[in-house]
């Protein structure tokens, strides 16, 4: 057997390429067979070769299938670095050559797959797109609804302001002129012959009646007066007037502090007219000497009672629908108004022992004042 050293050199056994360690995002992958979390984006692969010749001259070549188009250039380095890998299946192949340029037949392989991040999946994109569309749709509609509501409120506000202004102007101008007219009639009455004097006086009274009626309407329209306190004051004044004109004693009972509640004009209007009716019944029909008016709030209801010590009437008459007298009409009217407010009206009356009219109205209709 002849050994040719030259030949022996070149036909040297090829080195065996070995992958030593893989770092995924700086952390070692154990075991090497697979990349467990599959989420790594940066890979460092350390490798070496078992060579019998000068290991410093061992050269390497590697490629990452699905990432590198071809084998990379030969290198003496023992480290392969990949950054920013996209999700997918990969195969790292490594081969080595000895100092004489004899390449290993077999390659060392490290196969792995990178799972996509949530935001890299298509359901995520579809979901996001749908979500974003829904959100925009929702925001758009909310904005539209808000603008519509604003517009509606503004329109309502404008109508209310205008209505109040018209009523106020009418009241101020017409009211002052009617008051002036009544005074002029009073002056004329002084000099008028007796035959027409009474008529002129009653005309003056008519003019004043018109002003009073107008004042009540304007009062219920003006939002300046929509607190419960203001309402109580207005009712008290009405009670004083009724009692004074009929020469009756008046006794009022109000809590020291009334809740800070807003009563809208329409509710004020009905409630005021109902109570006015009750007061006028007591003053005109009852033959009483004393009227009691109580106003209080309890259990989310506004309660008002008007009590007189007059002659009263027979209770069964009350609930029959047919009430021929004006008194009966008044009661029916009162019932209707209180019912319109979702309230209750209770009348108790005993002959010769007076009448008690009890009104309860739920306050949930009222707007709660923001503190």
């Amino acid at each position: 057997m002849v050994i040719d050293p030259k030949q022996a050199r070149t036909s040297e056994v090829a080195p065996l390429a070995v992958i030593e360690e893989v770092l995924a995002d700086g952390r070692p992958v154990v075991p090497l067979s697979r990349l467990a979390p599959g989420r790594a984006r940066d890979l460092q692969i350390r490798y070496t070769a078992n060579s019998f010749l000068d290991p410093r001259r061992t050269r390497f070549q590697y490629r990452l299938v699905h990432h590198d188009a071809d084998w990379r250039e030969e290198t003496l380095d023992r480290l392969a670095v990949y950054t920013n890998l996209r999700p997918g299946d990969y195969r790292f192949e490594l081969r080595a050559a000895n100092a004489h340029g004899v390449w290993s037949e077999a390659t060392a392989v490290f196969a792995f797959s990178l799972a996509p991040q949530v935001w890299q999946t298509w359901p995520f994109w579809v979901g996001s797109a749908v979500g974003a569309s829904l959100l925009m749709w929702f925001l758009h509609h909310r904005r539209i609804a808000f603008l519509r509501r604003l517009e509606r409120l503004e329109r309502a506000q404008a109508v209310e302001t205008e209505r109040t202004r018209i009523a106020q102007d009418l009241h101020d101008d017409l009211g002052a002129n009617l008051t002036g007219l009544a005074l002029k009639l009073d002056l004329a009455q002084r000099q008028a012959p007796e035959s027409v004097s009474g008529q002129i006086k009653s005309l003056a009274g008519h003019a004043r009646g018109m002003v009073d009626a107008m004042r009540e309407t304007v009062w219920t329209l003006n939002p300046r007066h929509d607190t419960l306190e203001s309402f109580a004051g207005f009712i008290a004044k009405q009670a004083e007037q009724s009692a004074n004109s009929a020469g009756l004693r008046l006794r009022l009972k109000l809590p020291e502090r009334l809740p800070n509640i807003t009563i809208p004009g329409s509710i004020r209007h009905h409630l005021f007219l109902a109570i006015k009716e009750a007061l006028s019944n007591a003053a005109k029909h009852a033959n009483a000497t004393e009227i009691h008016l109580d106003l209080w709030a309890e259990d989310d209801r506004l309660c008002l009672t008007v009590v007189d010590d007059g002659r009263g009437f027979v209770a069964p008459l009350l609930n029959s629908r047919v009430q021929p007298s004006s008194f009966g009409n008044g009661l029916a009217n009162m019932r209707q108004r209180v019912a319109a407010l979702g309230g209750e009206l209770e009348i108790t009356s005993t002959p010769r022992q007076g009448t008690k009219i009890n009104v309860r109205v739920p306050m949930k209709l009222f707007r709660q004042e923001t503190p």
Partner: protein
Amino acid sequence: MSIKVSLVEDNASIRQSLAEFLDSTTGFRLGDACSTGEEALRALPNNPPDVALMDINLPRISGIQCVRKLKPCLPATQFLMLTVEDDSQRVFEALQAGATGYLVKNVPPEQILAAIEEAHRGGSPMSSHIARMVVQTFREPLPGRQNEEKLTPREQEILGLLARGYRSKEAAAELGISAQTVQTHVRNIYEKLHVRSRAEAVAKFLGA
């Protein structure tokens, strides 16, 4: 001695008619009849009336502002506010400014003349709601003042009765005092309300 009455009212027919009534009724004589607050501020100090009938809703300078300005230079004049609407808040402001009474314009002239006479005699009407507002006002502590004007127990009693609907005669009977005494108390209450509101204004001004 007749009562000298000045008028401040912007509606011409009301002003003229009232002036005529005052002129032609014995016991009364007309001072000035002004149509604006500005006119009243010029005329009234030179010709002090016993009673001034003052419209609350005057254009530009309101009746309330007029009273506030005129009361210090006309301490002997009784200011009676004329109102068209039931606005206790504004009436109350006028009372704080120094007015001693108020009446609704829309009443027969006899009632207006009677109210003037009563005010001149020292009477001061007080409705239940105004009484209630006075009670509430005096319950609030004044900011930054120790020796504030307080109501006497008797005054509080009277206010309590008026707030419950008693007329002053009824209150007098209830307390066993004369109607005249009740009237004096009510006048004093108005005066304290006035003093208190000035103190309040000063406190506000000083930033207390």
